[in-house]
């Protein structure tokens, strides 16, 4: 490609680079969003699963097999959470990608999604656990006293409220993931950071290239944060997770006050 050389200054250089290589950047953005969004959602489910394992309580009425199983499951949950929160994701990525490649022959992209999911899951488990603990004990008792067992109580009473309470923290994990997927370049995932290094390598202008990269990351996280804030406000309205089912607005304004009847 014979083109006029890039202007030497930062802004001019950056603009020039973006003009020429925009598709490469946006290909990276696509992968970054794909990985961080899917990994946040998968991580949420992993977190829910391990948070419920951590909730297992040993009941005196349990027989010894149930007791042992509960203890083992709880230990596994704790180990998982400690290991994945206690080691850097970049180390996890290299270890798992290369460690498992001979057996499952996965692509860097699949590996990236899996690794970020597992990593996020460990953080989500703690977020969900805190969410569960924020729910008043009375909710659990009321649900159980209506004859709902532990599982029904968790699924229909505790978790919907816990997730709602934990929503800001869950959303924050997504924002963190957008930035942290950058470490996946070590296993060759063509996300935004990886693409940027490629572009910078071509034009040999690291400073100018990474101004573009920074701006794109900032755009992604800022937009996401704003969207999450709107979603959070929606959840905070009295209708909350009940959803916008036919119920709300009409009755909210139209109900008849009927005090002291009965």
């Amino acid at each position, binding site marked *: 490609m014979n083109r006029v050389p890039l202007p030497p200054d930062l802004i001019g250089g950056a603009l020039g680079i973006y003009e020429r290589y925009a598709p490469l950047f946006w290909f990276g953005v696509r992968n970054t969003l794909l990985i961080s969004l899917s990994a946040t959602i998968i991580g949420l489910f992993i977190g829910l699963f391990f948070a419920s394992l951590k909730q297992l309580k040993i009941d005196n009425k349990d027989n010894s097999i149930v007791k042992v199983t509960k203890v083992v499951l709880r230990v596994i949950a704790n180990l998982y959470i400690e290991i994945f929160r206690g080691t850097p994701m970049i180390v996890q990525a290299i270890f798992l990608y290369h460690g498992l490649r001979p057996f499952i022959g996965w692509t860097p992209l699949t590996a990236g999604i899996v690794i970020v999911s597992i990593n996020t899951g460990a953080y989500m488990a703690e977020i969900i656990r805190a969410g569960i603990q924020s729910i008043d004990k009375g909710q659990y008792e009321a649900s159980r006293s209506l004859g709902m067992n532990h599982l029904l109580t968790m699924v229909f009473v505790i978790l919907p409220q816990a997730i709602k309470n934990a929503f800001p923290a869950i959303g924050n994990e997504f924002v963190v993931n957008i930035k942290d997927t950058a470490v996946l370049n070590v296993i060759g995932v063509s996300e935004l950071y990886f693409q940027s290094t490629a572009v910078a390598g071509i034009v040999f202008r690291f400073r100018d290239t990474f101004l573009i990269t920074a701006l794109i990351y900032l755009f992604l996280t800022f937009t996401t944060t704003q969207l999450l804030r709107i979603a959070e406000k929606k959840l905070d309205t009295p209708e909350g997770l009940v959803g916008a089912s036919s119920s709300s607005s009409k009755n909210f304004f139209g109900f008849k006050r009927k005090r*002291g009847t*009965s």
Partner: protein
Amino acid sequence: MIDILNLSKSFGKQEVLHDISLNVQEGEVVCLIGASGSGKSTLLRCVNLLETPNAGKIIVDGVDITASFNIDDYRTKVGMIFQSFNLFPHLNVLKNCTLAQIKVLKRSQKEAEEIAYENLKKVGLSDFATMNVTKLSGGQKQRVAIARALCMNPKILLLDEPTSALDPELVGEVLDVIKDLAKSGLTMLIVTHEMSFAKDVADKVVFMDQGVVVEAEHPSILFNAPKQERTKAFLARIVHQ
């Protein structure tokens, strides 16, 4: 209907209930009174197995509930009303009433809603079905909680200080609902501080102090001519308040 035999309950080293024996007949309304910390609420929670007794038996309908058996099945037959309502804030009034019906009793949604409306009508709140529970007043919340419990067609209703968390002007509407239920022949065990209410509705008033049943009598006897010194002292304190 309920036979409590030599029941004891400790939290750690603290003995909260000591050798309690009490009998509740079918259709009877029994009020538990006594100072805070006397073990009334713990006794009530034992009947629903929210607390596991350390010793003694609770026999309901001929079945010893302290032995191993299906707790969830039993709990559908025993409704519980809490001081702090414990409505599910993420669900509207109607869904509060239908959730357990659908998930536990396996009723269809339509059937569950019909039953819910029926019971909401009993507590005077059928117009509020689609409202969010957080929008209700305390008295309304407690009435929804009662409707929610009634939806399970309980044989026994346990009420743990149902009006203690309410503003004074809202107490009446809840007590009225409970009085109606008492007349309908539902077996009820009520922990309360409302003495005049206890006098009104109870077939038997049980005075508890420091984890034991001091006296259990018809209200006309217990309030007018208590035999035990501790009962007299307690009632004197209440009257002077």
